[in-house]
């Protein structure tokens, strides 16, 4: 990947990767840091990364950095992983889907976001998240079932 292609990746993928991270961790500052780290990694590995696979590489890096940060903060602060990155939540309480997303386990959230936001295939999601296709399908199936149940529950309340 050339310098020009790398900078093209910034133009094409930084917004979607940032959105992916924000939706995952609900913390825009942390998402920004992770994205910068992911792009740094992409720059360092640019000789080995094909431009056509740069987006997958970027999302893969971003995801793993995000997971590492979650685990690190969990150990550091002795806080359950599920409660991390919720203090600066992406703040739109009227957005039911956003609330429902918060209920999902991290791996399900990461899987369904890649599928719906970025349109990745199950195989590509598996490559990014280091999962088998079967595991990806199970995660997405379970995530969609939980989202639907949450929305139905809210509808019943309203």
């Amino acid at each position: 990947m050339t310098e020009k292609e790398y900078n093209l990746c910034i133009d094409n993928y930084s917004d979607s990767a940032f959105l992916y991270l924000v939706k995952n961790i609900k913390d825009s500052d942390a998402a920004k840091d992770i994205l910068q780290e992911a792009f740094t990694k992409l720059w360092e590995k640019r000789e080995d990364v094909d431009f056509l696979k740069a987006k997958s590489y970027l999302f893969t890096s971003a995801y793993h950095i995000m997971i590492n940060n979650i685990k690190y903060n969990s150990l550091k602060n002795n806080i359950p992983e599920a409660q991390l990155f919720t203090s600066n939540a992406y703040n739109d309480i009227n957005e039911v889907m956003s609330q429902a997303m918060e209920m999902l386990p991290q791996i399900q959230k990461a899987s369904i976001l890649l599928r719906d936001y970025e349109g990745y295939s199950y195989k590509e999601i598996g490559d990014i998240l280091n999962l088998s296709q079967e595991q990806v399908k199970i995660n997405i199936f379970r995530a969609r079932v939980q989202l639907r149940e949450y929305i139905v529950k809210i509808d019943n309340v309203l």
Partner: protein
Amino acid sequence: MITRENIEAYLLDLIEGNLSPEKIKELEAFLKENPNYREMINRYDPSLVLIADRNIKFEDKESLRRKNKSKSIYPFIKYSFIAIAACFILFLFVSKLFIKPLENTSIKNFDKVIVKNTNNTLSPSSSINNDKEEIVKKQTRVTTNKTKTIAKAQKPQEKEIPIEVKEGLKPEPKILLSNSMVVYELDNLIVYIEGEEFNKNKIIEVDNLVAYKDSPIINPILSPLIYNKYVYQLRYNLETTIEKTQNGFNNALVYIQENVKFNQLELVIAKK
């Protein structure tokens, strides 16, 4: 093989139409044995798709941009060469301005001066030669601008009232204490013949010709200037007429060495 652990994956493939006929038969067999999983198909809503909020942007894109070091060094090298070249040209230019007088005091330039002596009362050739040697020595000490050279001498025939020298023409004291006539900034040709009236037509584009009478008594600075009628005339014409002509003759004064007597002298300074 379909199990309770991976049943969701097969159900998803079924819903999305990706199961082969063989797998569909296998799934049907599994659901027949595990009917509680059949309801999972209804719990899954394929129309429930997350919509990305594209208003969320990463604003700090510029912080991510990079440049190859090899490429970024290239302009540096390129501009370094340009800078070096510019410095070299500037050095040459400055050298031409400030070092030029020293260069012009070389013997080579000095030799361009032709001194003809037709009626000697003293030993003109030896005097001239001595003058040359002396001038060469003295020129090495010259710190004034554009000193070019040569001595011409003639005893003043009549004294004129000294005329104050223009401030800008004052040579350095070292020059004034010399026994030679010094011509400053004489760019082109001057022909000066004793006994003839000063002919301005013979003076062409001379800049700052300075000549003065050297006297141990009255020459502490430049005051002993211009007792010779030619000198006076020269200076007079300089300040009145010649300076304004197209010849570009500027600021000419003549120095006469007191103890050297030439009845007739022709001074030619070659065009540089």
